[in-house]
């Protein structure tokens, strides 16, 4: 289970252990944590012989050491790893803990994960660009290795031997004689003075050949709570005296309220307040349902503002092809994608508790420190008085980079003088997203020669907000480039696999060949079926090839099988890599096959999952994921499954029907 200590836990922990170290540091806002310890006087630990029972460790769990920001070790041998990026299903917390535990030589079962609130001392906390692990890999390894060195040094002092002659086994330091051993818990229980914890000397990092945690499939730590319904997402939190709010929003962006029936809303049992907020009218109540009923009762009337009358068709007219600066020996085509919603199952929400001297916020954020800045600007409180907690997130796919719901909740809490839970309804979430931009991507390549097509992005001026959506430009870029490569292959009378192998680099070739071999490229398919391939390096770092097998029946496209090959450097958690590829493929299939977002009279038309459809269970293809073994640095996996799937399917549809589809969603 991943936890974050709450105020209540803090009181509990303080009462129970007199320690509460972690919490003191985070919640009292003492600024950057310094290595510290709560151990008592130093004593000599009793050595344990080989084979002696080391679990449960007979230690003192209230004794702790914190060798660095990421690691806390207690006297029972428990290891607490601080996860500074947001967990939203992509497995980053488990991966962070795995890397630290590997270098610390910890027993995996002894590792506990705590979620960090916003804290500049932890460095960048933006969870985006699939970069959490690639950007933190060295720092986390060093954190684990340094903690291990503290324990080795403590044991060596106890035994009066050279630290370098000692080694570790999981959770244990072993004497040079190979007989005597001290568990990490025993060492911490015995007390390690502050000055011995500030170790700068870090042993050489583990040889990757010795890895026993990194590279091993590990279940996500939160999964047992997920299946018991025990995970507390933002919207599941309750604070004493908390109010429930819902906001009636102008259907257009930039409109304003003209009138509403305050009395009718207040007449709904349970509704206590009605307040105008930016872009709408908030109804505050004793519980969610009353807030929603009160919102209905407002019957708000809107001035739609300058967007009234705008349609997506009109916006699309702004997508004008430029004339490619190429001669007649070039081939060029344009590929279109519509607006797309993030549509995470957990809608936007926030809980805010603003006091005169401090403010706490809970929100599904991918940018803890950015949210902290935003709240600080509203409340004018000092940074350390603004605590941003990130509960487990119900998927966000980029949506969590935008603060939106938080200022609303903060302002309401400020106004009411009480904690507020603001839930966006599905309708709010769908119609007030920051959408993947409607765009056109023009791909161009010489008709002959071995060149990868160049791709230009053509954007219309978008009157509706746009933002980062899982894989951002990589999704349309791959659709354009990989479709055009297929068109080139057709023009040249070549096998599209062959052409790709001729024009790509070595890493690309490896995943393309692997996917081709595993899929049985060239093997006969049933009549009416087609096979298509696409390759993309999302953010230029992770190489993914996907091969789709589809059938087309009366205009209905059905994807039966997808074979995916990925090279993401060193694999921290192979099961996460597979899960992210499976999930990315489903996300990309929704974009390839289901209708996007449209605008009519200045407002988003779609409002729920009945008109913004996600790929359902019975359209799930069989997905196989093959991982290229690699000892290169880890690159990233969260978004990388998405981009190749739309072009792979479009190319397969061409293979099946001879019809080239150049806009998404694919419609015959």
């Amino acid at each position, binding site marked *: 289970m991943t936890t974050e200590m709450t105020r209540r836990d803090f009181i509990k922990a303080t009462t129970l252990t007199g320690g509460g170290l972690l919490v003191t540091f985070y919640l009292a806002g003492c600024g950057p944590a310094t290595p510290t310890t709560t151990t008592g006087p130093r004593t000599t630990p009793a050595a344990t012989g080989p084979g002696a029972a080391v679990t449960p460790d007979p230690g003192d769990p209230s004794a702790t050491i914190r060798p660095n920001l990421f690691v806390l070790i207690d006297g029972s041998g428990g290891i607490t790893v601080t996860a500074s990026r947001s967990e939203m299903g992509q497995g980053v917390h488990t991966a962070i803990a795995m890397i630290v535990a590997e270098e610390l030589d910890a027993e995996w079962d002894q590792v506990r994960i705590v979620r960090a609130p916003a804290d500049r001392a932890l460095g960048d906390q933006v969870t985006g660009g699939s970069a959490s692990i690639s950007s933190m890999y060295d720092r986390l390894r060093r954190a684990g290795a340094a903690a291990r060195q503290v324990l080795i040094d403590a044991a060596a002092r106890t035994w009066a031997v050279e630290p370098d002659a000692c080694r570790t086994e999981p959770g244990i330091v072993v004497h040079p004689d190979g007989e005597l051993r001290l568990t990490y818990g025993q060492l911490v229980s015995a007390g390690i003075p502050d000055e011995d914890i500030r170790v700068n000397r870090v042993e050489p990092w583990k040889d990757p050949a010795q890895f026993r945690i990194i590279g091993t499939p590990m279940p996500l730590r939160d999964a047992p709570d997920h*299946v018991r319904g025990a995970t507390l997402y933002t919207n599941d939190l309750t604070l004493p005296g908390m109010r429930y709010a819902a906001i009636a929003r102008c259907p257009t962006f930039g409109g304003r309220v003209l009138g509403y029936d305050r009395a009718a809303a207040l007449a709904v049992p349970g509704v206590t307040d009605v307040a105008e907020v930016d872009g709408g009218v908030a109804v505050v109540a004793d519980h969610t349902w009353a807030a929603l009923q009160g919102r209905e009762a407002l019957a708000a009337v809107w001035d739609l503002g300058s967007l009234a009358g705008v349609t997506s068709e009109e916006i699309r007219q702004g997508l004008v092809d430029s004339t490619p600066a190429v001669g007649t020996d070039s081939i060029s085509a344009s590929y279109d994608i519509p607006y797309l919603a993030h549509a995470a199952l957990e809608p936007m929400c926030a809980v805010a508790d603003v006091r005169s001297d401090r403010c706490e916020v809970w929100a599904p954020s991918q940018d803890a420190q950015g949210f902290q800045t935003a709240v600080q600007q509203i409340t004018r409180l000092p940074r350390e008085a603004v605590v941003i907690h990130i509960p487990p997130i119900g998927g966000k796919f980029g949506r969590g980079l935008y603060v939106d719901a938080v200022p609303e909740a903060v302002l309401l809490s400020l106004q009411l003088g009480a904690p507020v839970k603001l839930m966006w309804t599905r309708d709010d979430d769908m119609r007030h997203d920051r959408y993947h931009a409607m765009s056109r991507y023009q791909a161009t390549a010489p008709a002959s020669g071995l060149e990868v097509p160049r791709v230009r992005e053509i954007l219309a001026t978008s009157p509706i907000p746009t933002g980062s959506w899982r894989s951002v430009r990589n999704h349309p870029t791959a659709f354009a480039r990989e479709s055009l490569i297929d068109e080139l292959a057709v023009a040249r009378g070549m096998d599209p696999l062959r052409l790709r192998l001729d024009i790509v680099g070595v890493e690309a070739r490896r995943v393309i060949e692997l996917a081709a071999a595993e899929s049985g490229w060239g093997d006969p398919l049933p009549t009416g079926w087609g096979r298509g391939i696409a390759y993309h390096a999302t953010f230029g770092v992770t190489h993914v090839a996907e091969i789709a097998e589809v059938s087309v029946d009366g205009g209905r496209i059905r994807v039966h099988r997808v074979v995916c090959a990925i090279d993401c450097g060193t694999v921290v958690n192979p099961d996460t890599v597979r899960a992210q590829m499976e*999930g990315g*493929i489903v996300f990309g299939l929704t974009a390839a096959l289901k209708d996007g977002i449209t605008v009519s009279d200045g407002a988003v038309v779609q409002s729920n*999952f009945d008109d913004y459809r996600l*790929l359902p269970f019975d359209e799930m293809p069989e997905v196989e994921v093959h991982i290229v073994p690699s000892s290169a640095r880890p690159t990233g996996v969260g978004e990388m499954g998405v981009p190749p799937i739309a072009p792979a399917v479009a190319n397969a549809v061409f293979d099946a029907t001879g019809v080239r589809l150049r806009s998404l969603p694919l419609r015959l």
Partner: protein
Amino acid sequence: MPSVRLNINGEDQVVDAPAGMPLLWVLRDFLGLTGTKYGCGIGVCGSCTVHVAGRAVRSCSIAVEKVTGPVTTIEGLSANGDHPVQLAWLAENVSQCGYCQPGQVMTAAALLAAHPRPDDAAIDAAMSGVLCRCGTYQRIRLAIQRAADRP
């Protein structure tokens, strides 16, 4: 406010709830059973699925006074999280963000209670209305098959 008698996870409860209030909000806001999730509020995502008299029901779309049988929520599916469906979910590492999973688990548990050995078509029919944006469907199918194979 009318009083409504309910049996939730084996316990009799009386709640004062406005007429028409969906069971979902009674569970979440009055009884603190937050495992049941809001996803759409109109019966199309399945995140809010509970059992009423053993059948999968979307709690966002049933008014609390219309509930006629005992209710089981994800918290009451098993004493220790060890229902065969929950165990199968863990064995197949189904979950990603986890938000849809209580609804997935409750829907699958109701399916297996009614059809202990469902074929693929029966699994499709039961599960296709329960959405997962993280895309865990392949593993959900494997987990249901695993749970169905348990003697």
